[in-house]
C-alpha cells in the first residue's frame, strides 16, 4: 500500500489522502458500499464503477458459506468472481459469527461455532480467518478480533481487548509467512469497549505493531451506544493513531456520522444503510431522507434531488414514478440504490473538495444547515465538532439542539 496525505484541514483533524492498493487508487476520506454476498444490491459492477465508487466491501463470513472458498479460488478470487476490477475490503468474519450464530463460544484458540451446514462444532481461528481472506483476495483484509457487544461492561471487555491484541499478532505472523503481504494489506482493529483507559492500552499495543500493519480500524462501536460516547471513542482513537496509516471506522453510514468522523480524522467508513434503506423506498438527500412510499410523492414530478448526477436523477426519474414502483419492482430498488450511493459519495467527495480548498468548517456548517434545518441539530454532533474547533451554532441563535441521536426520518408507512 502507498498512503499519502495530500491536505489537512486547518481547523479540524480532517485530511485528504491517496491510497494506492493492488487494484488502483482510492481517494480518502471515502464511504465504502457493502456487497455482502459479492454484489451491491441489484447492480452490476460496471454500474457501481459508473457511480464513481472504487472501493467496496465483501463479508468473509457469507462468502465462506456461499459460494465457498473453493469456488472463489477456481474463479481466481473474489474480484474475478464478481467482475469487480477495483479495490475490495473484507472483514474477518468474526463480527458476523458473533451476531448471526447463536452458539458461538470464544476461546483463546478462536471462535467456536456450530456450522450452519451440519451443526458440527467448527473453529474460526485468526489464522483461518486470514487464510480465508487470502483466498478471497481482497486488497484490504481485517484481523480477527474478539467482538463483544458495544454495551457490554465488566472484565469481559478487557479480556476481549487483550485477546484481540494477541490475535492480531497471530494474524500478522500468518499473513507475513504467507507471502501475500505485498498485495493484501492487513488492518488491525482497535477494541476496548467504551472505556477510555482500555482503548488507550489497546492503542498503545497496536501502535507498537505499526510497521507490520497497513492501517487501523476502530471497532466495537455502532452497537447502540450513546452517540455522545461514540464520538469520544472515535476521537480518542483517531487522535492517537499514526498519521501515516489510514483510519477506518466500521459500520458508520448516516451522513452526519460520516462528517463528524471525517472531522475527527477518520478516512474510511462502511455501512449497509444506504443500500438497505433504498429497498424500503427511502432516498437520501441533502435536505434529509425522503420516504418515497408516502402518498405525498405520488404526483411529484421532480427528481429525488435536483442537480444530482446519479443515473436516476440525471435521467429524469421522478419521485412519482418511484412512488409507483418502490418495494414492488426491483428496478425501483436499483434506482434508489444508485442515487443513495451517489449521495454518500457526494457527501464524502464534498468533504475532500472542501478539505483541499481549506473550507471544510464551512462545508460542515452548510451541510448541517441544509440537512437538519429547522428540525434542530443533534446535540452530539454539535459537541463533537466543537471538540475540533467548529461551532455549528455560530451565528444561529435560533437553531434547536436535539438531545440524543436526533436523527430526522421520514419513515412513516402511511401511504
Amino acid at each position, binding site marked *: 500500500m502507498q498512503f499519502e496525505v*495530500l491536505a489537512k484541514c486547518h481547523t479540524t483533524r480532517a485530511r485528504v489522502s491517496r491510497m494506492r492498493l493492488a487494484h488502483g*487508487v*482510492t*481517494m480518502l476520506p471515502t464511504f465504502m458500499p*457493502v*456487497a*455482502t454476498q459479492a*454484489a*451491491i*444490491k*441489484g*447492480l*452490476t459492477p*460496471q*454500474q457501481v*464503477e*459508473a*457511480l*464513481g465508487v472504487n472501493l467496496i466491501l465483501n*463479508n468473509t463470513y*457469507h462468502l465462506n458459506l*456461499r*459460494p465457498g472458498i473453493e469456488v472463489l479460488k*477456481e*474463479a481466481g478470487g473474489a474480484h474475478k*468472481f*464478481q*467482475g469487480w*476490477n*477495483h479495490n475490495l475490503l473484507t*472483514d474477518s468474519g468474526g463480527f*458476523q459469527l458473533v451476531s*448471526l450464530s447463536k452458539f458461538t463460544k470464544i476461546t483463546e484458540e478462536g471462535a467456536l461455532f456450530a456450522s450452519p451446514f451440519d451443526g458440527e462444532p467448527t473453529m474460526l481461528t485468526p489464522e483461518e480467518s486470514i487464510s480465508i481472506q487470502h483466498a478471497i483476495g481482497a486488497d484490504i483484509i481485517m484481523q480477527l478480533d474478539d467482538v463483544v457487544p458495544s454495551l457490554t461492561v465488566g472484565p469481559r471487555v478487557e479480556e476481549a481487548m487483550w485477546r484481540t491484541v494477541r490475535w492480531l499478532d497471530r494474524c500478522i505472523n500468518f499473513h507475513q509467512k504467507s507471502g501475500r503481504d505485498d498485495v493484501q494489506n492487513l488492518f488491525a482493529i482497535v477494541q476496548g469497549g467504551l472505556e477510555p483507559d482500555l482503548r488507550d492500552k489497546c492503542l498503545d499495543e497496536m501502535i507498537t505493531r505499526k510497521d507490520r500493519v497497513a492501517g487501523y480500524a476502530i471497532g466495537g462501536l455502532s*452497537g*447502540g451506544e450513546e452517540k455522545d460516547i461514540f464520538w469520544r471513542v472515535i476521537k480518542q482513537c483517531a487522535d492517537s493513531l499514526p498519521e501515516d496509516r489510514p483510519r477506518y471506522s*466500521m*459500520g458508520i453510514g448516516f451522513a452526519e456520522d460520516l462528517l463528524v468522523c471525517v472531522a475527527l480524522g477518520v478516512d474510511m467508513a*462502511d*455501512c*449497509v444503510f444506504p*443500500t*438497505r*434503506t433504498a429497498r424500503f423506498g427511502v432516498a437520501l438527500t441533502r435536505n434529509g431522507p425522503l420516504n418515497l412510499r408516502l402518498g405525498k410523492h405520488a*404526483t411529484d*414530478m421532480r427528481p429525488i434531488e435536483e442537480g444530482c448526477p*446519479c*443515473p436516476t436523477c440525471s*435521467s*429524469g426519474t421522478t419521485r*412519482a*414514478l418511484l412512488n*409507483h*414502483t418502490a418495494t414492488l*419492482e*426491483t*428496478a425501483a430498488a*436499483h434506482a434508489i440504490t444508485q442515487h443513495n450511493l451517489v449521495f454518500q459519495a457526494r457527501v*464524502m*467527495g464534498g468533504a475532500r*473538495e472542501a478539505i483541499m480548498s481549506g473550507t471544510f468548517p464551512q462545508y460542515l456548517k452548510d451541510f448541517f444547515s441544509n440537512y437538519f434545518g429547522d428540525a434542530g441539530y443533534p446535540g452530539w454532533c454539535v459537541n463533537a465538532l466543537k471538540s475540533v474547533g467548529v461551532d455549528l451554532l455560530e451565528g444561529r441563535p435560533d437553531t434547536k439542539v436535539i438531545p440524543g441521536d436526533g436523527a430526522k426520518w421520514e419513515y412513516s408507512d402511511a401511504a
Partner: protein
Amino acid sequence: MASRPLFTLTGSPLAGKYGPRTGRIDIDRQDGTSILQTDTPALLTATSRGVVPHLSRDNVHLTKAIHHIQLPFESFLDRNPPVLTLVEGTQPLHTFLGFDPNKHAITLTLRDPSDGRKMPPNGNDFVSAHCTRGVRKVSPSAWKSYVSKCKPDLVVALSDTPFTPAPHSQKRLTKSIERSIAWLADILRVPLPDEAITRPRNVLVHLAGGVEAEARSEFAERLTEPIEQRDAPGLSPPLNTLDDGVAGYVFDLQPLHAAFSAEASRTNSSPSPANELLHSSDRQRSSPETSIALVELLHASLDPLPADKPRIINSPVSPHEILRLVRDIGVDLIDGSWAQRAADIGIALDFRFPTPTDTSCANAPVPRARANGKRDLGHNLFDALYRHDRSRLASCFLDGQSASSAVPPPHGLPVCECHACSPRSPASRILHSSVDSQAWADVRPYALQPPVMRSYVHHLLHTHEMSSHALLAMHNLTALSRFFAGVREVIARGGQEEFEREVERFETTYDEGMALWDEAERMWLEVERARGKGRLSREREKQAASMIGTAVDL
C-alpha cells in the same frame, strides 16, 4: 402531412395470405419525423408497473434488444387521476418512464395480457382492471381520455375478454363481440369539437371470440362490414368499415391457453398453481397440438381481414409455438414475456434459430439433453450443476471479450451482446471532487470485460441477490431478439420452404416440454420459501433490530 403506413411487407410476396413473412414497422411522430424502423418478426418487450422488470434505466438503454415496449396501463389506476395522465409534453410516456423517444415505441394496453387471474365480469360499458388497490372499472370514454393524454405510439382498443371461470356460454361470447365492436367504434370516433380529445394514431384491435372459431369469424366479419348508421357520426375521415381505422391485430394467447388447459383438466385434474408467487401463465405449455388449435382459431379471425396489417402475438409460451405461428400464420410482433419470466426463475436461455449445426459448442457446456434426446432451451442456474461452472451464460453465443481477443476461438459463433456476456466498463464515471481524477487515471473507459460466469449467477440466485435477475433479463431479451433476427434471416434467404425445414430441425433439437421450467420454478420457490423462514429469516430479524452498524446487507 402524409405519414407512412405503420406496417409494410418486405421480401417476396407469399402465395397466399398465410406463411412466414418479413416486414417493417415504421413509427412516425406527430410531426411526421420517423423515429423507429423495426424489421419484423420482432420482439415486444413486456413491462410491469411501467418498467422492464429488473432493469434500471441505464441497463434498459444498454440492452439493444429493447425497441418495442408493451405498457399495461392498469397498475396506474391505483390513483385517480392516474399519474401517467398528469405528465406534460409530446411524449409523456417516454418522458415519465425513461424510454428514448428515438429508439423505443410504446404500445399501450389497458390490461396486462399475461395476467390471467380471475376477475369480476366486465360490463356493457366497462372493463374490470386490476391494480394494487383492487379492481377498477374502466369505461371506454375513460380509456379514450387516458389515451389522449398519454399519446402512445400504438394503443389497443378495449376488448371484452372474460376472466371469469371457463367455459363461457354462447350468449357470453355474443355479448363479448358486441361490446368489443362498440368499444372499438368508440375509440375510433372523432371527438366532438368541444372535447379536448384527439383520435389516437395507431389503434390496434384484439381479435375477440375466444376459443370458438365461429365467434372469432363473426367478430372479424363485423370489422369489415359497412359501418352501421348509428356508429357513423364522428367516424371520420369517412371510414367505410371499422377495419379501415385499425392499424393492426392483436392476439392474446393467454386466455386461449387457459381454455385449452381447462378443457384438458376436465378429464385429468391438472392443478392450477395455488401459490401466490406463481403467475397464472407459468404453467402454460405449448405442443404441436395446441399450435394446431391456435392456428385454426387465428385463421378464423384473419380469414375475413386484409393481409397487410401487422399481427401482434401476446404471451406465447415457447419458441416452438412462436415458430409455428410464424410459419402457419405469419406473425410480426411477438411479446417476450415468457423469456423475461425465465429470468425471474433463474433460467439463462441458450438456443438459436436456425439451430446451430454443431451443438457441442466449444469451451462452454451445452444445455442438458432430456430422455427424448432433445436439449433444454437454456440453463436452470439454480441447479447445483453450475456451482463450479465458470463459463459464459450461453454456449451457442460467444462473449464479447473472447470474440475480440487477438486469437478468437476457431468457431464462428455469434456474439451475445448483452451486458452479462459482453460487459463494458462505463464510458465515464462520476467525479465527486477535483482530486478524484487521480483515482481513475489508469482505468480504461468502455473496455470489454470478461463475461459473467454461470457460477456467479448460481451464487446470486441462491443468496437471493437481485443482480442475478438483472443479468438474466438482459441476456434473455438479447437471446430472444437474436432468435427473431435468425427467423428474419431464414425467411429472407430461403423463403417458406427453408423456413419450414428449419422449424422442423428446431423442433427435433430443442425440448418443448420445458421440464427445465418446472425444475427452475421448484428451486426458485424453495429459495423464496427458505427466505420466509429458517436461518436466513432469523438473520434478517436480528438485523432489522439494528438498522445500522456492522450488520450485513441481506
